[in-house]
Structure formats: C-alpha cells, structure tokens
C-alpha cells in the first residue's frame, strides 16, 4: 500500500489536504458541516467579508447556463465584526483550518480589514478578493487595474506584518494576467488564487431584459474550467515559485488533478458544492486515489507536472 503525503502549503500555512471551499460557496461553513466534518478537508475559505454589513444585489441573483451558472450576489454579508464574533469561533471549534477572504470598496478598507484580522487566532491565511466583478468601484474592478491591485496588497501586507500568508485572488477578465500576478506578488502577496468568476450575462426571453437583478454576473462551474487551467498554467510558467490556489469548475478528482498538474498547490471547490453538498469530500477522495494510482508518493511531486519537458514522446 502506497502512503501518500497529501499535505500542501500556501506560503507558511500548512494544510493536510489540498482541497478547500471556494469563497462565497460555503457561506461560513456551518451549512456544509451538516454533510461532512469540516476538519476533514484542507480548509474553509470563508465568504468575502467587508467592513460593514451588506445586503447585496437585487434578486434574481442567479441563472443557470450550459455547464455553468451566473451569480450576482454583491457580497451580501454581516460585516467583519459580526463575522469575527460569530463565524470564526464556530470554525475554530470545529477544528477546521480557516482562510479568511476579505473584500473592500477602497484600498483603505482592505487595510482596515487586515488590521482586524491581525490578532485573531485560528486563521491560516488571508485571501484578498480584489476581483469580485459585482462590486462597483466606479465601474472598475481592482484586479483589472495593475496599479490598484498592487496598492491593495501593499496595504494589506504592511498592516498584517509578516505572519499570515496573503493570497491575492485575481480575475481572469484581463488582457495580461501574468502582469497583474507579478505586481501583487512584488507587493507582498505570498500566493495567488486563480480564478474568480468570468463576467457574463443572460437575457431573460420572457421579459426580454437582462435576467439578473444586477444585470451582469460572474460565470462559474465546469464551463470555465479550461479558462482556469490556462490561467494557472500561464502564471505558474511565469512564476513557478509562487503557490497558486486553483479554482473554476472543479467537480471531480480528475478536474482537481488537472489544476494541480497545471501548477496549483491547492484547489478550491465552489459551484460543485451547490449541485452536490458532499462534493468537496468526494473530490478530495478521488484526487487522492488518482494520485496514488499514478504512482506519486506526495502531492508536491504533482504540482506543475504538466510543465516538465516530455521525457518520452510515446507516452
């Protein structure tokens, strides 16, 4: 029997398994705990939290599309204080590893959020969501602007000090993803989360108007997986030392393996949990079995494997 080292790291944070929730797709964790034990998976990535409580976008907030869905939630949430008071203690009590995702409307807000998190125990890393296409920032998403991206991460880095790993979550809706990635890593990000949703729209043919209350929404699910794999591959090729948390349409162990081979150190599972509450555990188990079946003895050997030169062309 092969023993597999299934653990992974993102910066200085260690996780027993490389399978995480995706931000915004597991609420605060409680709801999924009904279906499996949260401590059995890699980590819970919490829904992006902002300074103040937010009611989000008008409904309808979702539309199913071929092998995907659009969402336009608009970062509904309780605000950082209520989140720290209620959600973090629960997750810590469950012995879950926790990555807190933060989102701000201003560069300032990100730093303030980071300050709030600095002294909280039980957090493994911070994911900085600079890519949510649903939040209005004079029409511009942070992650679409290299300069703004850098400044957000810089602010968070300064505030948080050197302890907590910072993972910058990027949008694929840019001309030059590698340039944005380089910018945020230069500014102090320890890792990258790739990818957030792709901007999309559905027209409701009964009303003949955009279906979503927020008009546009973020496309997620298997439909975008090839885009996510490309993004991970491109960025890993350019910056092989930077750990990547891959996501976008992962719904089976083979999908997760694709991302890890492309260069991801871990994989977040979002939309798949909507169709399947136990998706994360299923994917985690399938991934483990696949890696063992391929003869690897540690997850690390697989990370970025697709970049190696072909040894044997006849494979």
């Amino acid at each position, binding site marked *: 029997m092969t023993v597999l080292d299934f653990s992974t790291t993102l910066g200085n944070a260690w996780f027993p398994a490389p399978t995480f929730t995706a931000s915004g797709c597991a609420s605060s964790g409680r*709801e999924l705990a009904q*279906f499996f034990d949260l401590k059995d998976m890699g980590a819970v990535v919490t829904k992006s939290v902002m300074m103040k409580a937010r*009611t*989000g976008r008008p409904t*309808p907030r979702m539309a*199913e599309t071929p092998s995907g869905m659009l969402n336009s939630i608009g970062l509904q949430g309780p605000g950082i204080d209520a989140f720290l008071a209620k959600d973090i203690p629960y997750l810590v009590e469950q012995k879950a590893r926790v990555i807190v995702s933060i989102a701000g409307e201003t560069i300032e807000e990100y730093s303030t959020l980071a300050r709030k998190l600095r002294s909280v125990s039980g957090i493994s890393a911070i994911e900085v969501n600079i890519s949510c296409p649903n939040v209005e920032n004079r029409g511009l998403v942070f992650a679409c602007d290299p300069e703004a991206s850098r400044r957000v991460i810089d602010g968070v880095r300064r505030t948080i000090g050197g302890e907590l790993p910072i993972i910058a979550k990027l949008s694929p809706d840019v001309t030059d993803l590698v340039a944005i990635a380089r910018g945020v890593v230069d500014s102090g990000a320890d890792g990258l989360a790739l990818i957030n949703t792709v901007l999309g729209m559905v027209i409701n043919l009964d009303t003949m108007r955009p279906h979503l209350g927020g008009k546009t929404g973020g496309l997620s699910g298997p439909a975008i997986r090839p885009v996510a794999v490309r993004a991970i591959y491109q960025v890993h090729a350019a910056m092989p030392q930077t750990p990547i948390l891959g996501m976008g349409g992962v719904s089976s162990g083979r999908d997760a393996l694709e991302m890890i081979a492309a260069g991801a150190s871990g994989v977040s599972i979002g939309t798949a949990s909507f169709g*399947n509450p136990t998706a994360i555990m299923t994917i985690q188990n399938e991934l483990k079995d696949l890696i063992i079946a391929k003869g690897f003895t540690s997850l690390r050997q697989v990370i970025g494997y697709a970049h190696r030169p072909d040894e044997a062309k006849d494979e």
Partner: protein
Amino acid sequence: MSTINKNATQIVATVVSNKRVGQYHQLIINIGELAALCKPGNFVAINVGGENSRMILRRAFAISRVSTNTISGGTLELIVAPHGQGSRWLCSQSEGSTLDIVVPLGTAFGIPTEPVQALLVGGGYGSAPLFGLAEVLNAKGCRVDMLLGASTASKIYAPMEGKRAVNSLRIYTEDGSMGQSGRVTEPIKALIEDMNIAVIYSCGPMAMLSAIDAITRGTHVVHQCAVEESMACGIGICMTCVLPVADESGNIFMLRSCIDGPVMDGSFVQWDKVGEVL
C-alpha cells in the same frame, strides 16, 4: 444561524411510480427511513439530467406527502410541473429509475398547539404540500378549510384521498374551467370575517402570497407562507435565494428562503421590496 437542516441527507432514491395528473406529474420516491423526518413545508433538491448533464444545479420541489408504512420503505410524493429542461427531465423518469436527492430541507409549517381554525390556500402545484399539512392539522383537531386556485382546470391539483382531511374545499380557476371563476384570493377577506380563522397557510406564486399578506395585514390572522425563490444550492451556501424580511424591531435582512424558509411568516416578508436593492 438556523439548525433546521440537521436531518438533511443526500441519497440515491428509486422512483416507485410516475403518473400524469392534469398538467403535473405525481412522483412517488422511495426514501426509506428519511420519510419519518419530513414535515409539511419541507422540500427536496434533486439532481437533473443524468450523468452527462449540462444542468449543474439541483431543482427544488415541495414534499407533497410522505408515507412511512409502505412495504417498500418510506416514500415521498412530489407534484412536478414540467416547466423547463430540468423539471421535464424529472417528469420523464420512469418507475425504477434512480434519483440523487437531498431530503428533507428547509423550514416546516408551524403547527398550532391548540385546535384552531386554519385556512389553507394553494395556487397551482402549490396545493401539493397542503394536503399533507391538512392531515397533520386535522389530527390536531383543527378545522381545515381549503381554497385552491389556478389559471385552468388542468393546473388544479386536488387528489381524492387528500380531501379526507379537509372540512371544505373550494376551487377557483381564472378561465372558469373548474370550480368558481376568478382568483383564489378573492374570497379570503370574507372568510376571515365570517369564520374564526386563526392561521392561513399558503403556498403558490409570490403574487398570491403577497396578495394574501395584504389581506391579513392588520388582522390577527397569522400567515404562514411557503415562498418560492430561485435557488442555486438549496442548503444555504450560495445566497441566491434571498428575500427581504424584517425582524421584530423592523430591521430588514436578506434571508435565505432555502434555509430560513421556504415557510416564513408572511407579515415579516417585505413583499414590495422583493427584487429591489435595499
């Protein structure tokens, strides 16, 4: 945070039967011992389209009735309208096919502790969960009157055996093809005044629920309605199914209709703000 989904389980269940009833399909599904945990108002979430489906989200259906003493184990009944691709697929599943189903989900209708007078109002397939509810109320000694409405006769679901638990049943169709001609909400005001109605249970289109709320507003009648919002996950993790709901102090929150509902107190729902930014 609600703990209401504590019995929710994902299982592969077998279709025991599938019959056409008017414009709907009645599906009986074997869910074994989980049947005992289902309450009127709860719903299920079903994977549709099979293994290679491009439909990635589950579809929600109200539990119409459950049966715990069947030979084949516990079963539940669904009344499914063939609406789009997913529900049509479900309606095409024949006896013996298997379904990936999460059950039971969501809040249930609150059952009064005293034997009060209850009015049950159903629109279209919304009548489905009301018959199971009627049985429970009946067993509690409540008087149960029922109003069912739909656009046309074939969209009225009112099974023979369901009527046993009901003291009276009136049917309304907009085209007059069955029962009385008109909307199911029209007689409610008079009924509340004539009879000593303590609680209205309603299930149907949002416009119907909202109209009932307008009628009960300012009265002593409690309005428990089962809302129906577009749901991506059905288990509280996606935030797509929210409704503006006020708390006792009037603060409005966007509550998830899958986990803080589908049964809600109609007087707290901000019907005029549904679909608006707060």
